[in-house]
């Protein structure tokens, strides 16, 4: 049936997109960006004690943002920390992803006050939000696996540009939350 029958055994055929997705998915190196309580749970995931993030190819926590793909924002981001966070994000080389770990990083959590940025998405684009205060290590693993699934299916080149455009458009047309009425669906 085509090319597969002509090549010798031991070869797999796939698309560049799928191959890149597969590679990126399984070597998702996080930057150590521990801020508060969540950072301790992140360390619990990182240490081989019980959760062992190495099973999912993400055990290589990099202190240097240049070598990291995933920024796990683990904890509350203060107004003083926000510019630092943004600089670190800018120093990471693309492709890069951001995981907002915990209620504070996602939305400011219980600290709705003068000191805390009400969600890290005010500073950097977030790919996946993880609820909890702090989230259990299993939840962090789950978030990383879900993100890996996203990465696995990421399109490249023109396809990616097309998808970004569609998502942007959908977001622009979406109804703002405060205009939504009725049941919490």
């Amino acid at each position, binding site marked *: 049936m085509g090319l597969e029958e002509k090549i010798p055994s031991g070869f797999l055929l796939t698309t560049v997109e799928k191959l890149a997705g597969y590679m990126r998915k399984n070597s998702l190196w996080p930057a150590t960006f521990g801020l*508060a309580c969540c950072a301790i749970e992140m360390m619990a995931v990182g240490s081989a004690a019980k959760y062992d993030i190495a099973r999912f190819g993400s055990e290589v926590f990099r202190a240097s943002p240049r070598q990291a793909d995933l920024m796990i924002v683990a904890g509350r981001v203060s107004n003083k920390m926000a510019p630092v966070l943004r600089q670190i994000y800018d120093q990471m080389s693309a492709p890069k992803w951001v995981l907002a770990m915990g209620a504070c990083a996602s939305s400011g959590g219980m600290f709705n006050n003068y000191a805390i940025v009400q969600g890290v998405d005010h500073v950097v684009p977030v790919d996946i939000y993880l609820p909890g205060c702090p989230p259990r290590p299993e939840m962090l693993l789950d978030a990383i696996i879900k993100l890996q699934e996203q990465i696995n299916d990421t399109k490249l080149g023109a396809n990616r540009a097309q998808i970004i455009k569609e998502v942007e458009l959908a977001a622009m047309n979406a109804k703002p939350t405060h205009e939504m009425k009725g049941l919490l669906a």
Partner: protein
Amino acid sequence: MTTFDPYAPSRETTEGKVFSVTGGDWDALVQDIGATKEERVVVNMGPQHPSTHGVLRLVLELEGETITEARAGIGYLHTGIEKNMEYRSWTQGTTFVTRMDYLGPLHNETAYCLAVEKLLGITNDIPERASVIRVMMMELNRISSHMVALGTGALELGAISPMFFAFRERETVLEIFEMITGLRMNMAYIRPGGVQQDLPEGALTKIRDSVKLMRKNFKENATLLIGNSIWMKRTQGIGYLDLAGCTTLGITGPVLRSTGLPWDLRKLQPYCGYENYNFDVVTADTCDVYGRFLIRMNELEQSLRIIEQCVDKLEKLEGAPVMVADKKIAWPAQLALGGDGLGNSLDHIRQIMGTSMESLIHHFKLVTEGFHVPAGQAYVAIESPRGELGASIVSDGGTKPYRVHFREPSFNNLQATAAMSEGGMVADIIGAVASIDPVMGGVDR
């Protein structure tokens, strides 16, 4: 720096040339710095650095590899917790304080609750079972906190396996926490008047088993570092701070005890009935990082001893109340495991909804409005894993705190960074800071 980097340029200032290092070719950087003919280099470490124990920023003035001046910059995790508490009821306050020093949440809660109880004048009315549970939880917490201190401290000095084992022990403690409070961290379990709920079935058995397991494991873990020649070389004689230095800087906790002074508030100014337990105050006389490390290692065993005594006491106090009898303070909640795994006891809800309007009103008022605390101020200090944790609380007689301030041992002790590291090598500041064990959530609040 040969190529222009938009985020890390080198630039001329009045203080001389400033290089920003954010990766790239180190040889080129060294060459550039060499060209300036400067002996003195100011290096900024952090606030995002793997070895600074959180979002701590260190500004170091170096001559070669010797630190001539060290300054710590903090505030990167300032959360406004103290101000936020002024807008919440006294009971809700525990939910905030628990997130300050996130490695010792139960110590924060206890300090806060003891201060609130002092203002309420109910210090002597706290049921014994509640006090024993508090002590047991605090000592378990001390173990989990010391485990993180030892594990990350070792990691920062380059030893990774102690961290794996330390976090394994920590998990053992967190499983107990989860069983009793429902949460691994930030429990808000200790409340003004007692504790939130009684121990679940099987908790004491589990604690007994865990204590046995931990005692065995601690002995194994100790062999990883004690006597290890690399570890000794990295820690002995490093971060020296003697008794005079400690008193001047107001330092407490393991750092003070490493000077040989057995200053432990659990012994000297007992709270929660600590005078009824047998344990030793661990000291060292080396005033260095190694001494502080040994103190933390040996305090684990003392904590296990206290926990065992607590379990014995709790077995005798089975069924005793865990909340103060005053129904104007104690929440009427009778928590039980419902069909959805959480919530109030259905019997209790049936009773207040069906038979007693007064109870329902009372319940509602107490939860939404809270109780009034007579005006005044109180300062209560307890021995947290890092030293004297003091809660200063002012009440104006309302249902909310007028002002809450925490005297955080991490905040105070971090001032010793300069005294401990100036004149030493740049690599040793890591060990010195790790031996203070600052928790940035506590430092910045």
